[in-house]
């Protein structure tokens, strides 16, 4: 659903994501379409609410960027303190996942081999592969030639045998 006006106020969470969440929260419940639409808009409203409150808290502190602490305080002052524990847990989880990913990629980078050496090894491997390909192609060509020759010879001897067979019969007749 593309927004034709491109207005900032038309920004909403995608309907599909909301539908999925409603389905998971209220399985087997029939939810009216206008109710779904309303939930989508409530989301936007909620985000604005939290942002504004967190922003105010941020302005009062010495910081310029809204921090997790500001968001948590905002949730508390707006009556959503019950969300705080779970929200903090997810943050921890996200951080752990991100950390694991960074570790994994840096392990690859730090094999201890400098880049030029890696490049050289790569070039070597390519050259080797090219050579193998060339040898393989050469072999195949030779095999094809041999096969062609054999076929020719076979055809030639077949016709020779035929001729030889017919002359033998003549000889036998003469001896009698």
């Amino acid at each position, binding site marked *: 659903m593309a927004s034709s006006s491109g207005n900032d106020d038309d920004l909403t969470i995608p309907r599909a994501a909301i539908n999925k969440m409603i389905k998971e929260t209220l399985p087997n419940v029939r939810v009216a379409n206008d109710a779904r639409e*309303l939930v989508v808009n409530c989301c936007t*409203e909620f*985000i604005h609410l939290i942002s504004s409150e967190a922003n105010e808290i941020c302005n009062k502190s010495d910081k310029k960027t809204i921090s997790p602490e500001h968001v948590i305080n905002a949730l508390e002052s707006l009556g959503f303190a019950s969300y705080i524990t779970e929200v903090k847990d997810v943050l921890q989880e996200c951080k752990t996942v991100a950390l694991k990913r960074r570790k994994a990629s840096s392990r690859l980078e730090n094999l201890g081999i400098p880049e030029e050496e890696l490049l050289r090894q790569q070039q070597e491997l390519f050259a080797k592969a090219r050579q193998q390909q060339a040898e393989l192609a050469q072999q195949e060509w030779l095999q094809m030639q041999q096969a062609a020759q054999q076929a020719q010879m076979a055809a030639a001897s077949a016709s020779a045998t035929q001729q030889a067979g017919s002359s033998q019969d003549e000889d036998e007749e003469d001896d009698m």
Partner: protein
Amino acid sequence: MSQNNSDKDDQTSTSKKTISLPISRVKLIMKSSPDVSSINQDALFLTTKATELFVQHLALSSFNNGAGKESNTLSYSDLAHTAEETETFHFLTDILPKKIFARDYLKSLEQMQEEEGDF
């Protein structure tokens, strides 16, 4: 977002621990709030997860307190009702115009016209 995609396998078993809403969209909405300049990435995760919890909370609350509970349905009015009854959801009343029946609207329109006619 890489966060969402790589966690797909985990979502069925640990759906509480991951985020299913699109973080980039939440960021856009936050930035469209007046005066909001920069947001720390972790603060963004928190807000996104809080929004998810909000959806669940709103849906459950509206359903449990709503008229449709026995028939297993959730309607617009259930949501509107909860917003008015629950204090933490009061902020939603701005975007919840009370739905009125067409005939009532026409009636009030007539009344207004009559009043104007008196002058």
